[in-house]
């Protein structure tokens, strides 16, 4: 087991792009090498060690590597981008694009996450013990496919465009979500335990289950009886018929 502990030397106002901070890159490396990793800080690059205190215990493969961020990193972006194994624990708030394009492994965030959490991820798991902002599990601007696999659990609320263009995988939100969750979905499963507004618009495929209240459901869905999931009976809708969609929307 290898544990890499990172803590900011000083709270930063200018964003840091930590797109190479992941277990795949840190596995088996001593502290000096990790400190030498270059990250973008504003419009220039600087070594990770200039911005963070770095402590390393042990040395192991990516699967057995854990990176722990102590304290708030709400101006550090792209933590865990492209990671395929291991674990990242963030004990504080985190900036945008955390876990983007993630392929495997696990990220646990004990704080809030900014927008684009787990965007375009294809595998692995993200657990957020806090609230998320916009575009959880969504796709890059203009792309037809967002999240394709893996699982995101949000133990709080999220803002708008949850799972935009999602093509696979699973998102579970324990709290409420904002406007237009599951917009243009083409696969995957989204479970929302709280309330949602205008869900599943232009959905082509996939499943959306909303346990709380739904506001402004679009008229472009066909109601097709009821369906029981885990002992609860939902009204079942198919659509969005505007795009010839075959998605399933279950609401109470």
């Amino acid at each position, binding site marked *: 087991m290898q544990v890499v502990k990172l803590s900011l030397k000083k709270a930063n106002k200018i964003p840091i792009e930590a797109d190479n901070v992941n277990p795949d890159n840190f596995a088996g490396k001593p502290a000096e090498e990790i400190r030498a990793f270059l990250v973008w800080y504003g419009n220039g690059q600087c070594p990770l060690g200039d911005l963070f205190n770095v402590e390393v215990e042990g040395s192991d493969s990516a699967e057995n590597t854990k990176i722990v961020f102590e304290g708030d990193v709400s101006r550090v972006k792209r933590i865990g981008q492209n990671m395929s194994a291991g674990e990242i624990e963030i004990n504080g708030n985190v900036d945008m694009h955390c876990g983007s394009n993630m392929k495997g492994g696990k990220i646990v965030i004990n704080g809030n996450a900014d927008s684009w959490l787990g965007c375009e991820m294809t595998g692995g798991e993200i657990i957020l013990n806090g609230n998320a902002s916009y575009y959880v599990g969504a796709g*890059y601007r203009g792309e037809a496919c967002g999240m394709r696999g893996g699982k995101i659990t949000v133990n709080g609320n999220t803002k708008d465009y949850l799972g935009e263009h999602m093509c696979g995988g699973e998102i579970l939100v324990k709290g409420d979500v904002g406007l237009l969750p599951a917009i243009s979905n083409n696969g995957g499963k989204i479970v929302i335990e709280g309330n949602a507004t205008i869900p599943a618009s232009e959905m082509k495929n996939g499943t959306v289950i909303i346990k709380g209240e739904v506001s402004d459901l679009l008229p472009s869905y066909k109601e097709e009886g009821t369906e029981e999931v885990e002992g609860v009976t939902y009204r079942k809708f198919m659509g969005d018929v505007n*795009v010839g969609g075959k998605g399933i929307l279950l609401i109470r």
Partner: protein
Amino acid sequence: MSEILIKNASVCDPTQGINCEAMDICIRDGKIVDSVSGNAKVIDAEGKLTMAGGFDGHTHSAGKINVGRFMNPNDARKNLVPGLSGQVARTEKTRAQVGYNTPNTYAIGYRYAKLGYTTICEAAIPLLAARHTHEEFKEIPILDKMGLSLFGSNWQVMEYIRDKEPEKLAAYIAWGLKASRGYGVKIVNPGGGEAWGWGRNVSGLYDPVPNFDVTPAEILMGLAEANERLQLPHSVHVHCNNLGKPGNYATTIETMKLFENVKPSRDRQALHVTHVQFNAYAGTSWRDFETGAPMVADYVNGADHLTFDLGQVIFGPAVTMTADGPVEYANARMLHEKWSNQDIELEDASGVVPLFYSPKSFVNAVQWAIGLELALLVKDPWKIMFTTDSPNGGSFVNYPEAFTYLMSAKRREEVISGFSKMALDRMVLPGIDRELDFYELAVMTRSAQSKMYSMPEKGNLKVGSDADIAIYDLLPGQVDPSTEYAKVKKAFSGAAYTLKGGEIVVKDGEIEATPKGKTYWVNAKVPESIDAAMQKDIDLKFRKYYTVSKANYMVEDSYIQKPVEIDTEGVF
């Protein structure tokens, strides 16, 4: 005075009939000359393939491509052809580059130059949006540029044709070219752009345009007559009716036949038909869709009055952009894709739809084959201009890949082996074993263009021509393109040297310098009395219909970078 001597080049210059012969080329002050002094900078080309700079006569590189950029922010990060696409940070010499199908303006200039291309012709300038086109031209480095102005669904054009006023029509074309600083007359789906304003299309050459009582055939003939009356350097440049529809090869041949009696006013074709791949479809629906290339090629082989370009398909993502509004609507609906639609007021329509050509789709596979069939079945390469209608059939950065299809039957077989049986049944390509040589390739990529656009100083290495030269890291005698196609692709992907106006702009596939290119436009002279009468008519149009005034409509000199005015004398 700057002098360059290119030594021991293996020169391929079809205009002079030179086929890979060892020669020296002398350059002084941007022109090719007979001899240079001993002080000339020497480039040792050591038997390397040397051609005139490439000339892409039909590309969407300024104007509508910007709508493609808005719609496809994701294109910015696509890097499907490493070295010629994707995100590249700025360097001392180059600006930052992004994109693949819709790269930023700087990337367009750099990447064409890396391929050894030095001149491009924007395929469609809506008169109303011409300022924007020229603003983009300004920011495309290195290349010489020109553009074709759209006239095929223009109210004033259709009225003059209906009212049988050929002289005023010619005056209007001359004014339109001046207003847009265009080089020639582009006709897109004649009449169809206007019909699209009513949610309709025209179904063929003799289907009248709503409210104008003229047919596409009359528009074509009227504009061709005006084009020749003004003695314009290029013939009319026609995107036929019914593009993209199964069975449209018949319309294409019919259009070509219409022009048999048009007498060109200069030593060039009477008609240029563009991206014929999209117009050479047989069958009656997408179910029984098949190639119509053999029929079109048959006709072209027996005709002397026309030239065409391919519109070759490249597998992968592409962005279709055309003034043919109804086609883009059909594409968007059929493919469930993003759709942009624009109304160009009194002039035309336009649309943009991104799409993906997949070798697994039998339709796409047959489309891919049709482009190559046209290139290989038409015997005379001087009738053909190589294009992908970039980025409609695929980005121009794939030209080297496409060259290998033309030059190697083995390479084609490799691709074909991935096709379904259904696709193979609908094409004739597997039975064609013709392979182009460097000479024929040079004809299709530069020399034919020189003649098509009446630009004697481009596309050849004659003494007096512009010193736009591409030297590729390829020894013609020692490389067999039919088997060593990987080498061919590599060499064409990054020229050993590209010279633009006698300046080294590319060396070993990397940008060396980024001079500003020239902008060519045509100023056709029209008698004052006819011009004045025509101006009265368009003044009325501006007062009644246009959202802009005439004064704000004209492209002013300040928009044009290093303008080259080509003067012609109209015959009235």
